């Protein structure tokens, strides 16, 4: 009997797990069931956990390529970027054990550094699917960098001029930088996903779109002073921002999982009989062809 393709089964299980984890996250955030600071600690480390899952799946995918294979560069860089974020989440969670973490902290180094790897992954992927000329590539890279660095600076000026954020210039700039960087990645991800169309390889990039939304909410709350680091504050907005952020990692892990299954098991097989041309005298099912070698 033919083995059924595990895609539907695995993905259903994974989606249910993501739903359960989200419910558990919201439960801890809102009900605060654990003693003392344990609730915040669990919530903070849950980001590390989710980021690690995403990074781990990306790493597993990268292991399906031999040294020197072009897609390996895409997946290695994507995995390194996600590991950068996982490390950042870990540093942030550890810092949060001892103090209220400042808006700009040591955690921002791997957070920002990860964008280098993401950008490299995107560039490598574009090179493979679109064959851009060096001039074309240079142009779009310059536009993207310009938009992220200068756009974030411009919006920082505007925000600082309009309101007293209570933040340092660096804090405001870094918060806004994340939004611009995520938006740029999201647009690049959208472009890649659209190029792949209905192909399974496009799905992995969709997860990164969610970060643009979650970081936008987070930065807006941070700049306006509405973000509360502790779940104790009972801030619905903070809970929404944190849950979106938590789910961004999990959705990224889910979309990566679709590609892991693809590399592990291949796409769902199309039966050979779907391509049977009666004029070519196709084999009857179960018979061995004389052309078998």
């Amino acid at each position, binding site marked *: 009997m033919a083995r059924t393709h595990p895609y539907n089964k695995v993905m259903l299980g994974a989606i249910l797990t993501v739903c359960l984890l989200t419910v558990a996250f919201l439960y801890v955030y809102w009900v605060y069931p654990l003693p003392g600071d344990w609730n915040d600690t669990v919530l903070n480390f849950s980001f590390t956990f989710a980021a690690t899952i995403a990074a781990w799946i990306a790493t597993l995918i990268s292991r399906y390529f031999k040294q020197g294979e072009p897609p390996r560069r895409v997946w290695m860089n994507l995995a390194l970027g996600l590991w950068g974020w996982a490390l950042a989440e870990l540093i942030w969670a550890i810092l949060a054990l001892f103090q209220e973490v400042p808006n700009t902290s040591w955690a921002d180094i791997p957070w920002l550094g990860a964008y280098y790897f993401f950008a490299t992954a995107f560039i490598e992927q574009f090179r493979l699917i679109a064959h851009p000329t060096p001039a074309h590539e240079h142009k779009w890279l310059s536009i993207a960098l310009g938009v992220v660095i200068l756009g974030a600076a411009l919006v920082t000026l505007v925000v600082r001029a309009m309101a007293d954020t209570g933040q340092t210039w660096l804090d405001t700039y870094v918060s806004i930088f994340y939004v611009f960087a995520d938006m740029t990645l999201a647009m690049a991800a959208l472009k890649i996903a659209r*190029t792949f169309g209905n*192909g399974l*390889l496009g799905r992995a990039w969709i997860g990164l779109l969610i970060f643009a939304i979650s970081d936008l909410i987070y930065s807006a709350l941070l700049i306006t002073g509405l973000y509360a680091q502790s779940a104790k504050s009972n801030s619905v907005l903070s809970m929404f921002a944190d849950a979106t952020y938590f789910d961004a990692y999990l959705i990224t892990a889910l979309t990566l999982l679709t590609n892991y299954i693809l590399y592990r098991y291949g796409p769902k097989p199309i039966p050979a009989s779907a*391509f*049977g041309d009666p004029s070519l005298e196709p084999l009857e099912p179960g018979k061995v062809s004389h052309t078998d070698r």
Partner: protein
Amino acid sequence: MIEFFSRAQANIARGSLSSLRDLLEGFRQQQVNGVVEISFEQREWIDLLLLNGETVGAYHLTDRSSNTIAVSNPEQWWQGESATIRTLNLPTNALRIISMACEWHPPAQSLLIQSSGLPGVLRVFLENKTSGLLHVIDSAGELAVPLMDGYPVAGEAVYSAAQMTSGRQALERGLQPASNNCTVRLYEARPGTTSFKQLVLRQVVAEMTGNVLTRYNRIVGSNLLRVMGNEMNQVLRYNRLQMQFVGEQFDNSHIFRSMDEATRSYNVLFRALYMHMTQVIGGGLAGKLQKEAYHNLNPRSQVAIDAQSILNTAHW
């Protein structure tokens, strides 16, 4: 007589039309691939090409001519006298060579040269952009390889010595004659013949699939390329096509009875390729890969593939 693969193990016997009928019936039951050569006294021959036991080609040959004859009425070309019947089991690659030789018979050139002069002869063919079938015979073995615009088609080369080899290895072996002298024969290609049209189409399809597979491999990696190859090979087996995907290469040793059958088969192949790639990289990119591969072909190959309804350009 075509005189190909003289070192291959052959059965030679004298017989009549009725013994030929018995022989062919036996080959049909055993689904034999090979050739039956019937030599008559008056320097004329009949060559029958067998594919899976079925006669797919029949040629009446003399020193100066070659004509296709009807298989169904052997009485028309064999009237009574006994003749020498030489039967030879051959792989399909070798069978294709015989088919070309029969259709392009007699040889346009036949030279006895020093082996050291072989590169020079090949250079002349290259300069003249010769298309045809090159047959090199020396004391150790014989090489048969089609030429397209002067270039040997390595994938279709057959070298026959104690054993028969095919492909690039056969070409390399055959171009290093073991003895001082060798005979070089050239059967010039006749563009109107089925074997030439199919040779051109095979080359174009091989080049086109090679281009697609190389690009697909770069995007998805060797793991998913192998998965696609396996699925494509199932489709090919299902349709009883003697072709297979090996990495980025497409091996094709199938013999088609007609151009129509070839067109339908290659159409199935490209449709299956497109469908599989669509699942992984999406329809837009899969179509783009085929379009790129098409545009990378030289204009003559584009014309050859356009002449058949092989590609579904609606995907582009």
